[in-house]
């Protein structure tokens, strides 16, 4: 029996998160939990997500009551074998709390900050987290998204990998210049981005429009792509829900934007007012409206997707893992069937167009598995 005590602490989901509320405990005090078992539901001002046990053990202590809000890094509970005496747990808690202020300060000092590089003649904003060495992972968001879409994935994946997430042209805090607004512009800038950050070869994780980008880039520069994880990728069939694209571009008010964003997820409760505010703030920036319209025109002319050459996709050597929500209301999950070749398809029940947010832990495991 191990006498190891594992602390469960408030995670940091996204750069802006400072505190979180424990909505519900999903495991009983004194009960055994598996590694990866959902044990907590945590709410931030932006989003609610489940938290999985970092290791197997017995949930010996639940340190925070449901409804309580605590800062990032605060002790939520303890996992330990039943044989570990209570006195040891008490001592652990006392020691943890005594050092808490120091730990928070250290974590803040070490927290990664987004940086800007020039690629393809424009400024791109990106966030790099994790350890050097090994094949890096690059996370590529979809239409209207930004690097914060990976808030549940990048921190977790960066524990074992070098993980970069970027804001595509026209998005987030990157330049709003999108040129012709087509995939050739995107992949050109993306290649320059990899050069600028010194990455020769990477595993690409692309969501929706970012999935198309990853695929097209892999076909253009196969030597630079070690593998692909495509999350509800665009470009595999003509159908796309233009209510989302047109609605996203057109919505100026909170109410309109809420109903548009709700199309993205199976459970509309995921769409928080902070999330809506962030999208509205982004859309107010000079150049965003023009950029989004140019991209929509370039990528979905006449309300249809330009479909990729699927025979070329089938010839790709890089392994492809596809993740798709069964309840995707933007791009039909049936598009996953069009892919042939080195492809593994994972269809997730009860999930919409944002599996990496809606079923983050599961998606993280699938990405880890794809990395081998």
């Amino acid at each position, binding site marked *: 029996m191990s006498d190891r005590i594992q602390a469960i602490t408030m995670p940091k989901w996204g750069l802006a998160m400072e505190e979180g509320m424990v909505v519900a405990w999903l495991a009983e005090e004194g009960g055994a939990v598996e590694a990866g078992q959902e044990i907590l539901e945590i709410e931030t001002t932006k989003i609610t997500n489940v938290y999985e046990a970092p290791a197997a053990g017995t949930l010996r202590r639940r340190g925070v009551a449901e409804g309580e809000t605590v800062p990032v890094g605060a002790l939520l509970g303890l996992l330990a074998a039943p044989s570990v005496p209570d006195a040891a747990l008490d001592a652990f808690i006392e020691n943890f709390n005594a050092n808490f202020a120091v730990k928070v300060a250290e974590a803040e000092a070490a927290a990664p900050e987004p940086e800007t590089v020039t690629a393809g003649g424009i400024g791109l904003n990106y966030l790099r987290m994790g350890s050097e060495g090994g094949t890096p992972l690059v996370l590529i968001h979809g239409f209207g998204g930004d690097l914060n879409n990976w808030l549940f994935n990048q921190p977790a994946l960066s524990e074992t990998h070098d993980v970069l997430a970027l804001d595509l042209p026209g998005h987030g*805090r990157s330049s*709003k210049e999108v040129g012709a607004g087509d995939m050739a512009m995107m992949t050109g800038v993306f290649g320059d981005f990899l050069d600028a950050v010194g990455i020769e070869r990477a595993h690409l994780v692309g969501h929706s429009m970012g999935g198309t980008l990853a695929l097209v880039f892999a076909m253009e520069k196969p030597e630079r792509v070690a593998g692909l994880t495509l999350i509800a990728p665009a470009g595999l069939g003509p159908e796309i829900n233009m209510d989302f694209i047109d609605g996203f571009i057109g919505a*100026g008010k909170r109410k309109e934007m809420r109903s548009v964003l709700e199309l993205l997820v199976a459970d509309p409760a995921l769409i928080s*007012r902070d999330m809506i505010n962030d999208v509205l*703030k982004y859309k*107010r*920036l*000079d150049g965003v409206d023009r950029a989004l319209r140019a991209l929509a025109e370039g990528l979905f002319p006449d309300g249809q997707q330009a479909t990729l050459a699927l025979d070329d996709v089938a010839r790709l050597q890089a392994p492809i893992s596809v993740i798709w929500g069964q309840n995707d209301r933007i791009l039909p999950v049936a598009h996953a069937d069009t892919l042939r070749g080195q492809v593994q398809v994972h269809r997730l029940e009860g999930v919409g167009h944002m599996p990496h947010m809606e079923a983050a832990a599961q998606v993280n495991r699938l990405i880890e598995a794809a990395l081998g």
Partner: protein
Amino acid sequence: MAKKSYRQAINEAIAQEMHRDPTVIVMGEDNAGGMGAPGEDDAWGGVLGVTKGLMPEFGRERVLDTPISESAFIGAAVGAAATGLRPVAELMFADFMGVCFDQIFNQAGKFRYMFGGKAVTPLVVRTMYGAGFRAASQHSQCLYPIFTHTPGLKVVLPSSPYEAKGLMIQAIRDNDPVIFFEHKVMYDDEEEVPDEAYTIPFGEANLTREGDDVTIVALGRMVSFANQVADKLDKDGISCTVVDPRTTSPLDVDTILECAEETGRVVVVDEASPRCGMASDIAALIGQNVFGALKAPVRMVTPPHTPVPFAPELEDAYIPSVDKIEAAVRDVAGYAR
């Protein structure tokens, strides 16, 4: 994202628009400072430093120090706007506006209408308002209801640094005369403000809190007070919506009525005098349009109908406080017929 003050946010908005559009000019008393006298150029940047740095960057031709004659330089700004420039004129304290009412009400505010829509007057008049600065009754008034009353003018009351930057850029790009009210006590308030230019449309209220029990409609500086009350009462089980109309002309009546209808209980908070003010106007709109949904009388939290006192204790008592707003919200929340 960098934190910026209300002052910096307004300065950055003007500077970015001056870069973007060569027709944007700045004028007002001591907007640079030190003109025609020995000593430092750009000594002031306006009486509270909002335009500091613009003259060195854009030159004397685009940042004009004017004589202490509001009737003259506001008139000049109206004329400049009518003939192709986009002036941002600073009328220091809103209290001084009386000497140039004709230029604003009868000229700037009427050109578009009287010339059959063919004339535009892209003028911004920046002005400071509000109590709490120990500046006595001639430098502390909230005169935005007077301008809201006059058709042809747009009236803006930014409630935070983020709001101030986006609304200022919108004001400069707008083709109608805009009176832009800056609360002098808020200049050092800070929050995250994007470096890039962005606009916030006029006539679209912002909900800074969303709740089920009480709607608080608050203006300008009062929005942050209302937010404090909403956060405090949320812990006591009273959940509030806070509506920041952002502009009093145009006024987002739809959003105000929708929120009033949803909660059925409303408090309107306004730092301006109570008679013929925004609070009474908004209360009347609610009473006329969604009376059937009301579960309690609409409460107004305003100062008393007196000049702003100079004695600090009296001035503090005069301004609608967080405590007074909280009491009013508790009152309507607990009201039963």
